[in-house]
């Protein structure tokens, strides 16, 4: 990884460091992701620990697991996975995120394989993972069916695929688009296209069609009084997440 960063010029590195600082600024433009991240991590870590019988009290509970994070951004999920001992590949279709994520991982003393690529390209290359993290991506892709087929190809037999997205209903329109983009200005206007949101039933059907067995579905619920997110068993009305297994 250091070989990759050493080839770019110092001005570029300074720019990437500034962008990394922006990605990891709790009050900056990625504030909504930072607010949601502990809740996402709680869900992801508990699902992986349960599926692969890992003891979260041990020093490197995810040692030996190969994890892919699709749409890795600045590395908000990759770094915790690496810290827990997993071998991590972070993929992002946006080229500018890759050096930014690399700089931050290096600062954090973590080894993470960040690549400017897509799920489809990785699948074509025959890559396979024990865990595929597919968080807040499926609502942005042009063809969810083809995309999830690629995700299935990336998940080894018996592996886990964890996918979160946003439901499509009046409430999600109010919360995710009017609330987050227009009222709170958490996200740039136009971040989400409501018509691309997917209901839990639709996602379950898509995952099954791709060849996954859906194991679990939970909601991520925002509490405006505590200003924090929590995992909900029942409330799938806006943000929700599914865990699916590729049959062994």
């Amino acid at each position: 990884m250091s070989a990759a960063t050493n080839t770019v010029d110092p001005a570029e590195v300074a720019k990437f460091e500034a962008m990394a600082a922006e990605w990891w600024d709790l009050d900056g433009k990625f504030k909504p992701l930072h607010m949601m991240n502990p809740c996402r991590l709680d869900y992801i870590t508990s699902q992986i620990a349960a599926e692969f019988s890992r003891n979260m009290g041990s020093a490197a509970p995810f040692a030996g697991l190969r994890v892919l994070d699709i749409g890795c951004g600045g590395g908000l999920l990759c770094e915790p996975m690496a810290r827990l001992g997993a071998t991590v590949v972070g993929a992002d279709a946006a080229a500018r995120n890759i050096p930014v994520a690399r700089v931050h991982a290096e600062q954090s003393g973590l080894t993470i394989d960040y690549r400017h690529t897509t799920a489809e390209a990785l699948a074509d290359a025959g890559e396979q993972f024990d865990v595929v993290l597919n968080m807040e991506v499926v609502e942005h892709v042009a063809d969810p069916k083809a995309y999830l087929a690629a995700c299935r190809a990336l998940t080894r037999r018996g592996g886990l695929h964890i996918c979160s997205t946003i439901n499509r209903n009046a409430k999600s329109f109010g919360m995710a688009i009017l609330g987050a983009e227009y009222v709170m200005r958490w996200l740039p206007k136009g971040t989400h296209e409501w018509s691309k949101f997917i209901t839990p039933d639709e996602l379950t059907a898509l995952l099954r069609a791709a060849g996954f067995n859906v194991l679990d579905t939970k909601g991520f619920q925002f509490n405006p009084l505590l200003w924090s997110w929590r995992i909900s068993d029942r409330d799938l009305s806006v943000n929700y997440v599914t865990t699916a297994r590729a049959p062994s």
Partner: protein
Amino acid sequence: MTKADESLNHDVLIVGGGLNGPALALALARAGLRVAVIDSLPLVTRADPGFDGRAYALALASQRLLRALGVWPRVAAEAQPMLEIKVSDGRAGEGPGPFFMHFDSAEIEEGPMGYMVEDRHLRRAFLDAMAETAAITQYPSATVTAQDTSGAVARVTLADGRVLQGRMVVGCDGRKSGTAARAGINRQGWPYGQTGVVCAVAHALPHGGVAQQFFMPHGPLAILPLKGNRSSIVWSETSARAKELVAMEDADFLDALRPAFGSFLGQIRLEGVRFAYPLDLTLAESFIAPRLALVGDAAHGMHPIAGQGLNAGLRDVAALAAVLDEARARGEDIGAPAVLRRYQQWRRFDTATLALATDGFNKLFSNDNPILRAARGLGLGLVNAAPRLRRGFIREAAGLTGELPPLMR
């Protein structure tokens, strides 16, 4: 995979090996973190079992924390349960006033409100427990000369040139915290102009596990039950008067103490020496900085009027341990601002409220204004007459209110 692990000898560097520091070290070691405990004193001095007169009123929640950390069995035989607390308004030479509050642990189901434990027993128990914990490395007789928490690792430089590295530094180094000062964290302070005179007395009659608090014109006098026919005295006075009290011959001091103390415990004599602690309220402007957190008096020094100093510190310990344990299990960077903010949010409001409440309580009671005397007499009587309010006070004294960290449940 963490490649910096080889160069990181510890996860958390704790500065201060008094009581909060070791409690935090034990709690973090249980959570699977490797801890360094740095203290300027040698171990033999800290383990000295000689009685110096200091004792703590451990609230029930604090006792539960010690139990969870395996420290309680080491001090249980030396701990005096506090079964009742009596609070009354007094005036030198007159003894307790007619109005009083009486809290009896029989009114709550959780058991005694707390325990009195002497400093020497507690200190020794913590040192023994740390020595038996492989994940804890002690750095005794070590003074911190520099710290750097600006990067991805925290570094602490010791006077002998050694440099310790960790994910974060925790300052458990008291109200004059060097850790806070080096991090550029300012403190606000309000001196009371009072000094606490602390000593132990032996008395002829048994105390029955009753803690007494008299509000005297110049400051409160607490008589707290120790094992056997002994009690710990915390006598808050104007600083000038306290200086006189400490300088007196034993016999003269006892003569000065007797009128306030009253005769309900029979003949009294001094055990050990007298200590004077200037009382002031200090509050750090922030409990956190990058890769740094403050715990106990380093974050908040409060009036000992309600015996809440150590209890508040142990609550910080349990809260910080819970936050760091949860972060570690999620794979978060334990020294990251996102993580430390959770600790600050949890503890800062709680402790600021408590510090100001004890400050207000002290101001209300530490004067001889006849109207205030009448009003607080009435207030004490009213609280005493209202069972629901009284049970609320008992739970508060036992430390059972607010959001309890898991180690205290």
